[in-house]
């Protein structure tokens, strides 16, 4: 057993040694140790280098407040975690850690040179320099600053671990399982309510774990809670308190296990909704601010007590204490009783509690009242301290190997503050405590300021006979913020504590100021000549301690990142080698390459097939809404620009939907199935939006209408058959519908059966050819598709994808909402003014069309473009100008919205929006690209079969 391990003490199991590696060196601790306690047991105090000055640092605390001992933990490929506090790492076999922010080694760190230059790096130095020469910022200064940045190793491999989540609902959530939290749980446990008690530590008990006299009580209490069905979660940190009793908490499931034995998810996010919340989060001890208070071996007194009682470790052999608060004495007494040498107890107060004095003298401890430590000695560990009576220059040196600080207690009010709870200044504590009320939430125990171990004084930095500007007295150890940095900030006019924080970075490190905020505030108050409550605190924000991204992202990754919606024909398309594209949440077949075809070749073939024979297209993703009720036609009449009332059952109509601002939102074909029933289609991406918009108007503007809306997008698989031979393909399989052009003309609708299953048949065309859209119940979709595919073989049927669909419709000048229109186009702009019912007095968006800007002649209008070079395909998004080679900024009058090579025409075609475009038809315009300007002729946005003769096949 090592020299610092105290036999018979602690909650560790010395019989179970645990081997671990620290900076490559093999060491041994005991089961139940943290990395911190194991290092101390091995006599290691030097555990890291500070952020800015690379100063050697040791352990300050024993819990999550630890600012210095940040480790990189390596659990195998992809499992490196940076900045983990040694005080929270549970020792296990094969634990591998390394220290950070040092090179080449912890003992010899070249970065420490910055410490020598530190006079040049006061707070805010970077605002004042690195400005000249101007170009050097990018080439020299910023790269250099960035090289110095950061603490832990940057990530480079993908974390193979899983993360999971769940929702919890409780009547009472208690955060913190110290005495206060456990008592609150006990009090509630008989009520039959659902009670949950969570604590971040591996064991429940809080401070009680450092108090062997209470261990029996603790064990009994935990048994009673268990018997009463209280849900007790350890290793579970409440990261934030949100609205209406919502608490986020993260449970660490595997990090305490040897990597080889860890299975299952690494962490679990608990989304807890609680009717009532008790915050029993305890209090954190405050360090003291004096020269070189950052030397390894300078620690919090309470941490030494925790190491002693919980881990059976002595933090030193000859320990000095600097106290301003009574609670430090208990630590000294406990250490002394454990046989650890006490060098002295230095107390800044002149008048000490007689009982403490008596106890100290009983134990033979030297007590030096009304004095302060003014410096520490040693290189990488403290070897002694200098102290001086207050106001005197008569310094004295004392040798020691650890210095404990007892500066009073700061209630852990983070979660209370997340909930916007008010804080009041408690003069006796020298800290802020929860004040006033909060819905659902109360505080108890040390968190509420109920801290009993005596009293103390709280000051800014300890007095020193030296010029305080001449030495470093650290406030924020992790960010290397000194008292003089804070005073400098105040001197430079940063008077708000929020400014001081941001100028000095006090409290902004990974510990978020758990040990530094209050001291920083005190120093600032001193410099400002204000009281601490006048200066106030900075804002507490979640998370309470740093929280793994993965735990918050949860299972939402890869295939589960978001649903990929697939149609029932997707598996067929996949088997045919389709290339897919994402459209909204759907994946759609884009084209079906054969052999070595590229997209252009496949699309050309698919286009020709449709124009000359027949093509087959999966249109299932189109949104569908069934609009039902006696007022269905009236409702559509109000929503859409078109007139609907006169549409006869069995007929279809193209519908155009505007926003109330007059701009195109969506379009689609709707069929009237019966007097009181319409089958309305929407764009693939617009389905949910359109239904939501319709519901909004129906429920809140026209609740008197008897109409109901149901999404039927997924009720039907939609198979489009397009081309002169489309009828031939379906005819053998259709029952109950006369497919002749007379009985079922363009824009007609019929119901019947196909392949033996019910069918809704639309005679519509988005290609300009004879076309049918066959809607069948989705479960039959694949079978019907396959039957028609088989039938189609005799007609040379070809499956086509969205890309071919785009080309075919562009040849016909049909717009795609969201591509050719972009949320700034009116129906007239898009050349579909014909779809607006001229006699209608109102519909959604109509009034906006009369606004001044909507009537201007230079609005952008949809036109066609034909390039001079028929082989050149314009780039979609390319801009259009009327004056070539104008200087920058070049006035632009429009842009290309759709552009393809048209296999039918054997040349390129494009759709575009152009200012005053319709009046420019026949004009030459220019499309300037980076390398070349292309000449184009403006045309009608219709390139093929102007008369529409092909619609009938």
């Amino acid at each position, binding site marked *: 057993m090592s020299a610092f391990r105290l036999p018979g003490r602690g909650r560790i199991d010395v019989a179970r040694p645990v081997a671990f590696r620290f900076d490559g060196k093999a060491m041994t601790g005991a089961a139940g140790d943290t990395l911190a306690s194991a290092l101390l047991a091995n006599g290691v105090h030097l555990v890291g280098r500070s952020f800015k000055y690379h100063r050697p640092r040791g352990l300050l605390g024993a819990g999550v407040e630890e600012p210095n001992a940040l480790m990189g933990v390596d659990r195998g490929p992809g499992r490196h975690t940076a900045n983990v506090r040694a005080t929270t790492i549970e020792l296990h076999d094969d634990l591998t850690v390394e220290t950070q922010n040092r090179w080449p080694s912890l003992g010899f760190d070249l970065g420490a040179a910055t410490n020598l230059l530190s006079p040049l790096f006061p707070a805010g130095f970077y605002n004042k320099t690195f400005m000249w020469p101007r170009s050097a910022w990018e080439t020299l200064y910023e790269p250099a600053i960035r090289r110095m940045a950061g603490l832990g190793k940057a990530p480079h491999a993908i974390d193979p671990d899983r993360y999971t989540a769940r929702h919890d609902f409780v009547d009472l959530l208690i955060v913190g399982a110290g005495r206060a939290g456990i008592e609150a749980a006990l009090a509630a446990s008989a009520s039959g309510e659902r009670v949950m008690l969570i604590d971040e530590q591996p064991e429940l008990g809080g401070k009680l774990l450092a108090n062997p006299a209470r261990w029996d009580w603790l064990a009994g209490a935990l048994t009673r809670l268990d018997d009463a069905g209280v849900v007790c979660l350890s290793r579970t940190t409440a990261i934030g308190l949100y609205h209406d009793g919502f608490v986020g908490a993260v449970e660490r499931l595997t990090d305490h296990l040897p990597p080889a034995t860890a299975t299952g998810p690494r962490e679990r996010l608990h989304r807890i*909704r609680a009717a009532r919340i008790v915050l029993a989060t305890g209090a954190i001890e405050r360090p003291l601010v004096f020269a070189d208070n950052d030397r390894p071996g300078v620690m919090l007194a309470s941490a030494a007590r925790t190491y002693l009682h919980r881990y059976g470790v002595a933090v030193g052999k000859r320990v000095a204490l600097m106290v301003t608060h009574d609670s430090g004495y208990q630590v000294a007494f406990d250490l002394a009783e454990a046989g650890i040498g006490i060098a002295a107890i230095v107390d800044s107060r002149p008048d000490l509690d007689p009982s403490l004095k008596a106890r100290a003298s009983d134990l033979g401890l030297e007590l030096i009242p009304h004095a302060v430590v003014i410096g520490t000695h040693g290189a990488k560990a403290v070897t002694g301290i200098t102290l001086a009576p207050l106001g005197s220059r008569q310094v004295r040196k004392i040798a020691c190997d650890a210095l404990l600080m007892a500066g009073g207690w700061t209630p852990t009010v983070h979660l209370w503050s997340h909930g916007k709870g008010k804080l009041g200044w408690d003069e006796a504590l020298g800290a802020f405590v929860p004040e006033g009320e909060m819905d659902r939430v109360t505080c108890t125990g040390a968190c509420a300021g109920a801290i009993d171990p005596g009293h103390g004084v709280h000051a800014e930095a300890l007095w020193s006979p030296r010029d305080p500007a001449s030495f470093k007295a650290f406030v924020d150890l992790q960010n290397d913020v000194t008292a003089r940095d804070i005073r400098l900030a105040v001197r430079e006019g940063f008077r708000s504590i929020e400014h001081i924080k941001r100028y000095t970075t006090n409290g902004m490190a990974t510990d978020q100021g758990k040990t530094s905020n209050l001291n920083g505030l005190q120093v600032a108050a001193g410099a400002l000549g204000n009281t601490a409550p006048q200066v106030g605190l900075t804002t507490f924000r979640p998370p309470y301690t740093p929280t793994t991204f993965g735990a918050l992202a949860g299972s939402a990754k890869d295939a589960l990142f978001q649903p990929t919606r697939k149609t029932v024909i997707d598996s067929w398309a996949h088997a045919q080698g389709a290339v897919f594209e994402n459209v909204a949440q759907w994946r759609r077949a884009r084209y079906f390459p054969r052999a070595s075809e590229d997209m252009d070749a496949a699309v050309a073939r698919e286009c020709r097939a449709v124009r000359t024979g027949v093509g087959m297209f999966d249109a299932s993703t189109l949104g569908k809404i069934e609009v039902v009720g006696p007022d269905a036609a009236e409702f559509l009449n109000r929503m859409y620009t078109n007139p609907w009332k006169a549409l006869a059952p069995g007929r279809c109509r193209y519908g155009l939907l505007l926003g109330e601002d007059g701009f195109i939102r969506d379009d689609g074909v709707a069929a009237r199935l019966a007097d009181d029933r319409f089958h309305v289609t929407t764009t693939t991406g617009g389905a949910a939006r359109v239904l939501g918009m319709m519901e909004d108007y129906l429920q809140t503007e026209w609740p008197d209408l008897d109409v109901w809306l149901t999404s039927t997008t997924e009720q039907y698989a939609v198979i489009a058959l397009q081309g002169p031979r489309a009828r031939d393909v379906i005819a053998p399989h259709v029952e109950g519908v006369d497919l002749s052009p007379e009985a079922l003309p363009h824009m007609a609708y019929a119901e019947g059966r196909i392949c033996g299953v019910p069918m809704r048949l639309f005679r519509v065309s988005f290609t300009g050819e004879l076309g049918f859209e066959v809607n069948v119940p989705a479960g039959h979709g694949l079978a019907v598709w396959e039957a028609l595919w088989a039938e189609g073989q005799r007609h040379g049927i070809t499956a086509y994808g969205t890309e071919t669909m785009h080309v075919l419709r562009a040849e016909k000048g049909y717009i795609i909402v969201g591509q050719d229109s972009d949320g700034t186009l009116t129906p007239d702009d898009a050349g579909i003014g014909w779809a607006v019912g001229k006699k209608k007095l109102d519909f959604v968006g109509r*009034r906006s069309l009369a606004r001044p800007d909507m009537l201007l002649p230079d609005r952008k209008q949809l036109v066609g473009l034909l390039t001079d070079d028929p082989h050149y395909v314009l780039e979609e998004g390319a801009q259009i100008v009327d004056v070539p080679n104008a200087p920058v900024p070049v006035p632009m009058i429009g842009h290309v919205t759709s552009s393809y090579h048209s296999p039918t025409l054997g040349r390129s075609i494009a759709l575009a929006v152009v200012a005053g475009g319709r009046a420019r038809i026949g004009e030459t315009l220019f499309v300037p690209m980076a390398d070349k300007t292309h000449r184009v002729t403006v045309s009608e946005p219709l390139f093929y079969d102007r008369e529409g003769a092909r619609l009938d096949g």
Partner: protein
Amino acid sequence: MLLIHCPYCDEPRPEIEFGYAGEAHIARPINPDDLSDAEWETYLFVRTNARGRHFERWRHVHGCGRFFNAVRDTVTDTFERTYKAGVARPGEADSWTGDTGGIV
């Protein structure tokens, strides 16, 4: 995550089930043509955006599907009450006695 009392379901439900739908009690004009451009602009775009007591619409979109109204303090984010669509706009917090359709 807010907890919102749906006046139709008559129980509190998590925020993620709801869609926020903007300021409440802005009725669509019966005859939009009668409005001047400025009045139409007001209807379309101008909002109270109150700091404090705010009348707003929500839809229980992933629940019962209904739009309803709420009074919420936008500084604290706490709901004073929610009420069914069509119920008149409540007055001051303490003087209002209308149909709550479920008080939060």
